[in-house]
Structures are given as structure tokens and as C-alpha cells.
């Protein structure tokens, strides 16, 4: 057992912390969030230059060959900064799919570009009826004569596709056979963002990101991985994404816990700092314990996310997501409460972390969903 960071990981952590300190003051973030594209291309180039985009990608395709723990270190610090660049969707998810299932040609063409910051990816999976079931897919794909067997036409609706507008290519789950909610018969496709037949409605999200609704009418797509084998692939990569957002959530929670602690020590009411009231001391201790539990489960899931035993792996993923849901809810809500009226203002950063934590619970299945999944495994 060893839970210490390697020298490289510590350097990475320091480097992300410096970036956040220099680029992510609340005011600077506010401007980014309000800008046309909702993030910064300069930041993206810098993330490529610092090697963060290459971190988890294989060395033979221009990557650094890091593992889940390296991604965890990076994501935690991005969480601390409430960073809005599309790292999760492009590298963790998009890169994850390419690594897990891309053909030699796809990897050769796309992974080096991803590592160099020249390619962004998004993942379209949710549908109006699907709720959190990745296999509840009604979008359809039919083999098209034009492409000589490797080209498909995809039709249907995908909802709340994060960072679709900024992506060059979008990975879409669609049904090539089977009925709604069958695990068999789902295929993942790569489509171009400017493809014929694709229309997008873009909008901001409550936590400062961007997302889109996609309408597809015979959009040309190339399969990514085995035709009909999309369900297992999604389990793998979404599992990795969950491990990564757990780390992001831990970063958010730690900031809230530290800030609230500091606030209680400085805010004077009834002639003493609020930190002198036992009821608030206990509340702070509970917040602190939630942070520690969330961090422990985040380490655990990132060490088990590549575990070969499927049940063991999936249980670890769902257990971590449940704990993150519980801890994020408590720490987020109590941080607002203990800041009183100030916690309610857009001006203070507390509310922004609270909102991000709230939406992380929804992402890839909330606490209820993962409890049920855990019980069924």
C-alpha cells in the first residue's frame, strides 16, 4: 500500500496549481464563462504545451502514457480551479474511447492531434427517455451503400451533449440492432461536427459549461470499435470518466471546506468568531470528514478502474459515485449555509463550486442510480 504521489505526479500537481492560480481568478473565469465559446483557446494550447492533454494517451501516438492516478491528480486540481476547458470530454472520454476501441488508422490519425491540442471531442449518449441508462438508446444507424460497408447513416436526438459546439468530432451511441434498452446492438460512431444532416442547439449550463441538443438526420458516421459492441465499451470508458469526475469533485469540496473554515474563523457575530460556536464546529468537522471519505473513495476507484474483474471494477465505480454524491451534497449545501447570505451571492466563489458539485452528482448517474447499480451487480 502506498498512497503517496510520485515525484512526477507532485510536479504535475504543482504545475496545474500554478495554472489555476495565474489563470483562474474568479473574475477571469466569469469572463471566460460569458465569452462566445465559453472557454479559452489559449488555455487549451497551454494545456497541450504543458503535456496535460497527452498525459493519459499512449506514447506510440504522441502521448505520455500516464495512468488513472495521473489523470486523478490533474482532475483534482482542475476541480479546485473550476476549470471550464473541455478536458474531460476530449481527453478522458474521447481519448478513452479511441484508446479502447479505435482502429489503427483512427488512433494514428486522431490521438496525436488530441495530444497536440488540435482536436477536440465530445460524447453524445443521453436521450430524452434514457435517464441514466447508457443502453437506453433509440438513435439508429443504418449501413450506407456509399461508404463501402464502413459508413453508416445516423438518425435521432441526443441531449445535453457537453462541449459539442467546440468539438471537431462527436462520438455518438446509436442502435444498429436490438430493441430499446438492449445492451446488445449499440454501436459507437465518430461523426464530424459539420456533417450534413446534423443540427445543434447550443446553450450554457447552470455550472458554467456549454452543452447542446443534437438532431441527426442521416448523418454520416464511422464505427468506433465493434459494431454492436458499444455497451461494453461505454461501461469501460464511462467508468474512467466517473473516476476522473470524482477527483474533480474532491478538488471542489476541498476548496469549499477550506474557504468555509476560514470564513468561520474571521466572521464575527455576537462578539466572537463564528468558529467559536460548537454547533458550527461540529458542522465543519462533518464537512471535513465528508471530504476525507470522498478523497479515500476517489483514490480507491482510480486504483481499481482498470481492474480486470468486471464486477469488482463496476462495484468500485458505483460505490465511489455514491460517496461523491453524498459528500458533494453535504459539503456544497453546508458551505452555502455557513456563509449565510454571502453564500447565496454570485459574487462569491462558494456558489459556483456548489453548483458544479450539484451537477457532478447528475453526471453519468446520480447517487440513486449508482446505489441500484451497486445492488444489482
Amino acid at each position: 500500500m502506498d498512497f503517496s504521489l510520485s515525484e512526477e505526479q507532485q510536479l504535475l500537481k504543482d504545475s496545474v496549481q500554478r495554472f489555476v492560480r495565474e489563470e483562474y481568478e474568479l473574475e477571469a473565469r466569469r469572463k471566460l464563462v460569458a465569452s462566445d465559446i465559453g472557454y479559452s483557446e489559449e488555455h487549451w494550447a497551454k494545456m497541450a504545451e504543458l503535456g496535460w492533454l497527452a498525459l493519459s494517451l499512449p506514447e506510440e501516438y504522441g502521448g505520455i502514457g500516464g495512468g488513472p492516478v495521473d489523470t486523478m491528480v490533474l482532475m483534482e486540481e482542475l476541480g479546485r480551479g473550476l476549470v471550464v476547458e473541455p478536458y474531460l470530454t476530449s481527453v478522458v472520454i474521447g481519448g478513452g474511447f479511441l484508446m479502447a476501441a479505435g482502429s489503427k488508422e483512427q488512433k494514428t490519425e486522431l490521438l496525436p492531434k488530441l495530444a497536440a491540442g488540435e482536436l477536440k471531442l465530445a460524447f453524445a449518449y443521453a436521450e430524452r427517455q434514457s435517464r441514466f441508462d447508457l443502453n437506453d438508446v433509440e438513435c439508429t444507424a443504418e449501413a450506407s451503400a456509399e461508404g463501402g460497408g464502413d459508413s453508416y447513416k445516423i438518425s435521432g436526438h441526443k441531449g445535453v451533449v457537453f462541449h459539442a459546439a467546440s468539438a471537431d468530432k462527436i462520438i455518438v451511441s446509436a442502435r444498429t440492432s436490438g430493441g430499446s434498452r438492449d445492451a446488445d446492438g449499440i454501436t459507437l460512431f465518430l461523426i464530424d461536427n459539420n456533417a450534413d444532416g446534423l443540427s445543434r442547439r447550443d446553450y450554457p449550463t447552470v455550472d458554467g459549461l456549454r452543452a447542446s441538443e443534437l438532431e441527426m438526420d442521416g448523418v454520416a458516421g464511422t464505427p468506433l470499435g465493434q459494431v454492436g459492441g458499444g455497451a461494453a465499451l461505454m461501461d469501460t470508458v464511462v467508468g474512467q470518466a466517473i473516476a476522473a469526475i470524482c477527483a474533480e469533485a474532491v478538488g471542489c469540496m476541498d476548496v469549499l471546506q477550506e474557504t468555509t473554515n476560514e470564513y468561520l474563523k474571521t466572521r464575527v457575530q455576537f462578539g466572537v468568531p463564528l468558529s467559536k460556536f460548537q454547533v458550527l464546529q461540529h458542522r465543519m468537522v462533518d464537512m471535513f470528514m465528508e471530504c476525507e471519505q470522498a478523497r479515500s473513495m476517489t483514490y480507491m476507484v482510480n486504483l481499481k478502474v482498470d481492474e480486470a474483474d468486471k464486477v469488482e471494477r463496476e462495484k468500485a465505480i458505483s460505490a465511489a459515485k455514491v460517496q461523491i454524491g453524498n459528500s458533494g451534497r453535504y459539503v456544497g449545501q453546508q458551505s452555502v449555509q455557513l456563509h449565510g447570505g454571502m453564500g447565496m451571492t454570485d459574487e462569491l466563489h462558494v456558489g459556483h463550486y456548489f453548483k458544479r458539485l450539484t451537477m457532478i452528482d447528475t453526471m453519468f448517474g446520480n447517487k440513486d442510480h449508482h446505489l441500484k447499480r451497486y445492488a444489482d451487480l
Partner: protein
Amino acid sequence: MDMNFHPEDLAFRDEVRKFIGENLPNDLREKVRRGLHLGKEDFEFWQKKLNDRGWFAPHWPIELGGVAWSSTQHYLFQNEQVEANCPSVMPFGVRMVAPVIFTYGTDEQKQRFLPPILDSSVWWCQGYSEPGSGSDLASLQTKAVRDGDHYVINGTKTWTTLAQHADWIFCLVRTSSDGKPQEGISFLLIDMKSPGIEVTPIITIDGSHEVNSVFFTDVRVPLKNLIGEENKGWTYAKFLLLFERSNSLTGGLKQQLHRLKTVAAAELSGGAALRDDSAFAARVADYEVQLRTYDALELRTLGKTEPGAEASYLKILGTDLQQLASELTLQAVSYYGNPSIRDALVYGYNEPSIGPEYAAPAAPQYFNYRKTAIYAGSNEIQRNILSKAVLGM
């Protein structure tokens, strides 16, 4: 013991329903039902309708415009309105400052200030909290210094709800620094058009503009705008706080439950309605049981003539439930809690909704309702009050 409404109560309830049916326009009902933005004109419209019927200030003394209702009738009246999606009544004039004026004000103050509250021609806001005085309200620092027949006011009030619409503000100000902090506070009525008042918006985490900062720089207020005695304002402030905290929440909670059930019936999970998902159904049932408990608790307190300690526990339990219902609704809409389009919260938004129409208010309401455990004396302060006043600790 008897927990049934008497036939005359039920007849009264039907009368209220009939009135609402005849007077509440569809578009206004829709705005409230869907949780959309309400403008000043929406509140005014409904308040004037109520006043035309003589029902706007039922808890006032009869000679001033009140109605001789039993506490059960007050309860029914308030909750029927909420369940029928009527706009709420803006409390700052009719429910908050008016009882202070008719209890402690001079005859001249009553004649001057009460009629415009009744006909909704004058809009009030509340100047209590300050940047340095939240839970510790008595530490407030906004100063009022006598200068001839005026006070001169300097200081800052904050979290002032809807000050952007207000014509007048009732303020707690410091007129003395001697003795205990509570002993140097006075209760002043101030015209918002006075030179030296500046109102700046505070945007909250849900993106809305409900609250403001109000800055006072050498604002001159006639001495005759003082309520009661100088340095006795704390007594009037506490009297008012009891009214602020004793607002019945049952109707609003039932409305939230209704909205939650509508969403859970429409949302799908695993090919069936979300309401049939056993885990979610259990959460909704648990909420509903807590709501019934709250309702039973509130009914038990109805017989009391003046709100007392029960106002504190009703505030804690009621706001907990407000928050819980908003949280469950956000969970119910799942991914469609994400889109954030402010205009989608305005009635008459012409674009098709993103996802289901009911999803748009879910996240803003959840974020906004965090305030309920903070305002009107945080729930921590309410617990302090209960431990002292009821449990003698």
C-alpha cells in the same frame, strides 16, 4: 379533539375557491404553476383583486380593513390560494410593517401609511440586515443622528428583497451606543426617494435579482417617521420577526409536491414512469409523509392567538421541506437540470424548451431555495431560540 373542518369552514373554503376561479386570469395562474418569473405588476394585480373583495389584509384589526376570521379560516384562505397557483402576497407592507404601525404607530402614522398598503399603491421593503450584522442582528451599525426635526442616516443595509421596486423602507437604525446593543436601536420609516439613497442589485447563485444593497449617505428623515419610542426599536423588530416567521408554508409545500409528482409521472426511467421507480417513489412518499406531519403540526398551532416559539420550529421544518422538494425535483429532471436559459423562466418565451418545459425552473429553484434556511433568522438561530425559550437551556 377533532381534526375535521367544520361545515362552515368547508363552505368558507368553497367561497375562496369560487373567488379565485372568477378572478385569477389563466396566464397569471400559468406563470405561478410553472414557476416562472413574476413581475411587480403580477403581484399588484392579485393584491388589488384581493383588496377589492376585502381579503387583502385579513389579519388586520377589523376597523382598519381586517376580517373577523377564525385561525382555521386564515389557514384555509392562505393555503387555498397557494394550491390554486395564485401569486403570493408581498409580505413587506401588509404582513410586516403594517402590524408594527397599527400596534405601535401614532394615529397620524396609521392614517398616512396603512391605506396605501391596503390598495397596493405603496411598495415596502425591509431594512434589517447589514454586511456586518447577519445572525447577530442587534449589532447593526447604520446610524441615525438627530439634526433639528430630522434624523440623518448613514450606513448600509443588505439582502433587501425587491428594494428595486420599493417606495418605502422600514429600517432598524442605531440611535445610541450606550448599554446593550439591543437598547440603542430605533425603528424608522424612510421614503426611498430621499436624496442619498442608492440601491444596487445583488445577483444570487440562481442568476436572479431579488435582493439588493441599500446605501444611505446623509439621508434626512423627519422625526415624525419614528415608530414608537427612540431606542425601543428592538421590541418592534422582534414583534415583526414573529410575523415574518409565522407565514404558513403548507400550501406552498403541497404545490411543490404536486409539481414533483407531475415531473415524476412524465419522466421515464428504464422504459417506465419515474414515479414507478421504487427508490424514487420511496423518496417522494417520504417527502409526502413529512409534509403531512408538518401540516398536522401547523394545524395544532392554529388555536394560538399570537405566534410564539412554534413560529421557530415551523420555520425550520417548513424550510427543510421546501429545500427537499426542490432537490427531488432537480433529481427528477436529471440531465435537463443542466441547461441554463434565463429567458426560459419568463412567461411567453417563444423558443421551444430545451428538454421538457418543466425542467427549466428546477435547478434555479433548488439553488435559490438554499436561502430559506438562511433568511428570517437562520435555522441555527431558530434552534437557539427554541433551546432558550422552550427548553429553558
